[in-house]
């Protein structure tokens, strides 16, 4: 029977367990999709557009085709087609060596008709701007209105009017997008893909090559980061398969170079907002009027949640998606939320400053009454305030003196993090005592491989390292794509059920042969032993020997009660700012996070640290810089596109909020929530330190100095 709750007493679940593939990864022996070089592999190199907007007049590959080592060329954008951003795909060459493919790419002659571009939002929103898409560059969504916002603004004790913005950032997966595809025979494709979704990748390869999906095997043993940008084969992967077919089945390996990874591998849309926020002296927010926009490049997707977290009785919002000649947005860790959080949390802080209220108190006063998160937030605010030393340290905005100033800020966030209930895990017990789990999910660094093994080990009284936790294969039972913090809550329930069923089956098979033929209810497993009435009678291995030739195999499904969704989370930041240079130094970050029952506290903690550091990058360093004149990205690298290094990381305190009622909720995902609030909290801490709002992210010296200059009327 399927379980509807997790065991009360656990030996492994909710403890700290190092990940199963840790040594493989730390020894360089783990084979990533980009490490695979099956026999006969050809290297694919992509020709991509140097222009932000152009029509392909002609493309000549004849010279390239005859060059040494070149085996095949696929043209993606032929004559008459348009390229719509710097980095848009034009053609792919497959050659014996990467160097040869590169030479051939350079030898392809493309005649472009250059078209006017709108590569920045300013350009795209200008009058008579060149059209990025037919129908205009600015797509207004329907205005949302609740209550009477105009009236609320008039009646309020205080109203702030402000503009906030945060630029486009890119995922910067360390392993770039790509795969190696081998057309095994007429009808079968094997692909080693760097993906967050083996199943979706298999589907896409099957569909684009017109073969049944059962003829496709996608393998992702490990992979080097996705953050929301790797959910399919992409044009690069489907072309690799086509090229492989073309060359008679030799594998073709295509991974983007770092430049194109920035340009075309996805990004988080920008967000800009003009906000009016009204509130009374008691700290209650009464109304909000917001005009927002953002760009997801040549695609939509710049929507973000607002109002965010807080309950605002009267509000009005108009949002526009702006199209620019830039690579299209893809889901990025907690899509929309860090943007909405920055805008909401800045506005509420600015209102608190105007009303002379402690930022902590104004937040507490505006949580939704009756919402299940309200108590969580109140507890988390109290815990976080304690850990950062809010009481002793916080000083109201504008009261600091001197060149070096310290500031404190906080931000609240929320996420769903629930799972799907149609996933499956198989569990097989062999007579040699091996236990193998299988599911078509994948470990993108989150630790799901280890989480599944922990659950199985808990059920069988073994060690996690005794379990073969096999994932990353599209032919396994249907598993969850890794996005939206859904993997662990989707996969843990079917895994638990598969193991319970397999264990019961084992008991049923061996009980009759045990001395005294005990009823199965007398059997249990612990510490690698089979127990009868609590007394060890033989090793687990010996017990398995008794099942005979046919292994026990079960297919676990989900059942209610084991997973849930909906989390809060609060982060606090302590900074020091140099008023002369605008340099911000992070002193400390505190993250208090709820997420139901934590299976592996170690990988959970890593996820939270990682989320915070992702948010730290968003708050401090990251920005896609586009040159308006050439329409090209100026920093498609890892030097001028800045990311934190070891010395940029302050003290980070991660606190798991897990009172008994949290554990009873079951499993909830953790990938997204901890990355949401960090950048907002950093901005608030900086503003608290320097006495004025820095309206544009990230908190670089330039943006800080601009804010100070604006205050002095110099901007």
């Amino acid at each position: 029977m399927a379980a509807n709750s997790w065991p009360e007493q656990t030996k492994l679940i909710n403890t700290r367990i190092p990940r199963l593939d840790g040594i493989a990864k730390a020894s360089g022996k783990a084979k990533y999709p980009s490490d695979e070089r099956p026999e006969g592999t050809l290297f694919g190199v992509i020709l991509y557009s140097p222009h932000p907007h152009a029509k392909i007049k002609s493309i000549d590959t004849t010279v390239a085709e005859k060059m040494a080592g070149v085996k095949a060329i696929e043209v993606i954008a032929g004559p008459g087609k348009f390229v719509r951003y710097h980095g848009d795909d034009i053609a792919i060459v497959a050659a014996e060596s990467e160097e040869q493919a590169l030479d051939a790419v350079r030898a392809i002659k493309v005649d472009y008709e250059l078209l006017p571009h709108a590569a920045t939002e300013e350009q795209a929103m200008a009058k008579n701007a060149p059209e990025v898409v037919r129908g205009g560059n600015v797509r207004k969504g329907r205005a949302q209105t609740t209550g009477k916002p105009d009236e609320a603004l008039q009646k309020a004790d205080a109203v702030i009017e402000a503009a906030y913005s945060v630029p486009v950032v890119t995922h910067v997966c360390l392993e770039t997008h790509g795969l190696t595809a081998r057309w095994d025979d007429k009808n079968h494709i094997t692909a080693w893909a760097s993906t967050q979704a083996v199943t979706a990748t298999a589907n896409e390869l099957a569909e684009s090559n017109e073969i049944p999906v059962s003829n496709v095997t996608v393998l992702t043993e490990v992979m080097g980061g996705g953050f929301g940008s790797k959910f399919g084969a992409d044009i690069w992967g489907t072309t690799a398969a086509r090229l492989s077919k073309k060359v008679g089945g030799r594998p073709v390996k295509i991974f983007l170079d770092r430049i194109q990874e920035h340009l075309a591998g996805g990004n988080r849309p920008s967000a800009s907002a003009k906000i009016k926020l009204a509130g009374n002296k008691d700290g209650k927010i009464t109304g909000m009027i917001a005009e927002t926009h953002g760009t997801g490049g040549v695609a939509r997707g710049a929507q973000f949640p607002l109002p965010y977290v807080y309950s605002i009785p009267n509000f009005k919002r108009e949002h526009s998606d702006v199209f620019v000649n830039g690579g299209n947005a893809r889901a990025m860790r907690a899509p929309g939320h860090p943007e909405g959080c920055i805008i909401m949390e800045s506005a509420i802080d600015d209102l608190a400053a105007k009303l002379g209220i402690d930022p902590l108190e104004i937040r507490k006063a505006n949580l939704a009454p009756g919402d299940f998160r309200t108590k969580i937030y109140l507890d988390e605010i109290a815990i976080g305030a304690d850990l950062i030393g809010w009481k002793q340290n916080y000083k109201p905005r504008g009261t600091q003196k001197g060149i070096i100033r310290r500031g404190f800020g906080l931000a609240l966030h929320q996420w769903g993090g629930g799972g799907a209930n149609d996933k499956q895990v198989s569990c097989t017990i062999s007579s040699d005592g091996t236990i193998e789990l299988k599911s078509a999910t994948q470990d993108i660094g989150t630790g799901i491989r280890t989480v599944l093994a922990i659950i199985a080990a808990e059920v069988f009284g073994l060690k996690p390292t005794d379990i073969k936790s096999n994932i990353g294969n599209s032919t396994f039972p249907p598993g969850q794509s890794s996005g939206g913090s859904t993997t662990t809550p989707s996969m843990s329930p079917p895994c638990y059920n598969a193991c319970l069923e397999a264990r019961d089956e084992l008991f049923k098979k061996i009980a009759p042969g045990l001395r005294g033929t005990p009823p199965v209810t007398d059997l249990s497993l612990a510490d690698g032993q089979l127990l009868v009435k609590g007394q060890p009678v033989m090793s687990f291995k010996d017990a398995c020997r008794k099942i005979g030739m046919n292994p026990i195999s079960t297919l676990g499904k989900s059942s209610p009660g084991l997973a849930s969704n909906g989390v809060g989370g609060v982060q606090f930041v302590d900074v020091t700012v140099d008023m002369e240079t605008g340099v911000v130094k992070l002193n400390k970050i505190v993250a208090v996070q709820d997420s139901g029952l934590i299976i592996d506290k170690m990988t959970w903690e890593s996820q939270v640290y990682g989320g915070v550091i992702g948010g730290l990058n968003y708050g401090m360093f990251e920005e896609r810089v586009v040159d308006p004149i050439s329409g090209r990205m100026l920093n498609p690298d890892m030097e001028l596109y800045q990311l934190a290094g070891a010395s940029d990381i302050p003290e980070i305190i991660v606190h798991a909020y897990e009172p008994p009622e949290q554990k009873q909720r079951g499993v909830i995902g953790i990938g997204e929530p901890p990355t949401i609030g960090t950048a907002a909290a950093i901005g608030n801490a900086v503003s608290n330190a320097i006495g004025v709002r820095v309206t544009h992210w990230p908190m670089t010296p330039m943006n800080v100095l601009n804010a100070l200059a604006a205050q002095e009327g110099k901007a």
Partner: protein
Amino acid sequence: MRDNASSSNSGNRRDFLRGSGVAAATAVFTQTAQVGMDEAAAEALAAQGVAVQSGSMKITLQVNGQSMVSEVEPRSTLLDVLRHRLDVTGPKRVCDRSSCGACTILLNGQSIYSCTTLAVAAQGKEIRTLESFDTGPKSVAHAFHQNDGLMCGYCTPGFVTACQALLEKNPNPTLEEVKKGLDGNICRCGTYVGVVQAALDAAKAIKV
């Protein structure tokens, strides 16, 4: 390098460019002591003039104590030869231009970025990649594992190698020295807390 000097006779434009590529790289090498091209070799090269090399050539590399022969181009980076020709895939290609550290290897004991080192320049030198490092209970890899200093793990080979190089030079690093020693590496998953602790733990473990 000398083996192929004769090809300078067949100089076309591409050969010239490739030759100058080697020269340019050499200039970079000599500027950064990191790269470990010893002065004597640089002087010899200067005296001999720039060798022009083109086409592909057979070279022998000493990788993890083994002689490995590979057909390379003069412009082939050491990283690409290790990964694409010799299947030594521990070092990763991430930025491909000395910004992220994922391709870090040890060349004659010095940690270098193999993405911006030419394979031909590594001939006759001792190349060590993390595949050859100890993984036992007193190893850097073990400390990374125990501290969960890795998530997706794609940056991990670079961090492990940088850490190994640091500890070989400085067996008692302070926290600040560890951070400095790892500042040439970038992790997108955000594993720094575990990584730094791993380096400190490994230093302790290796001593006992």
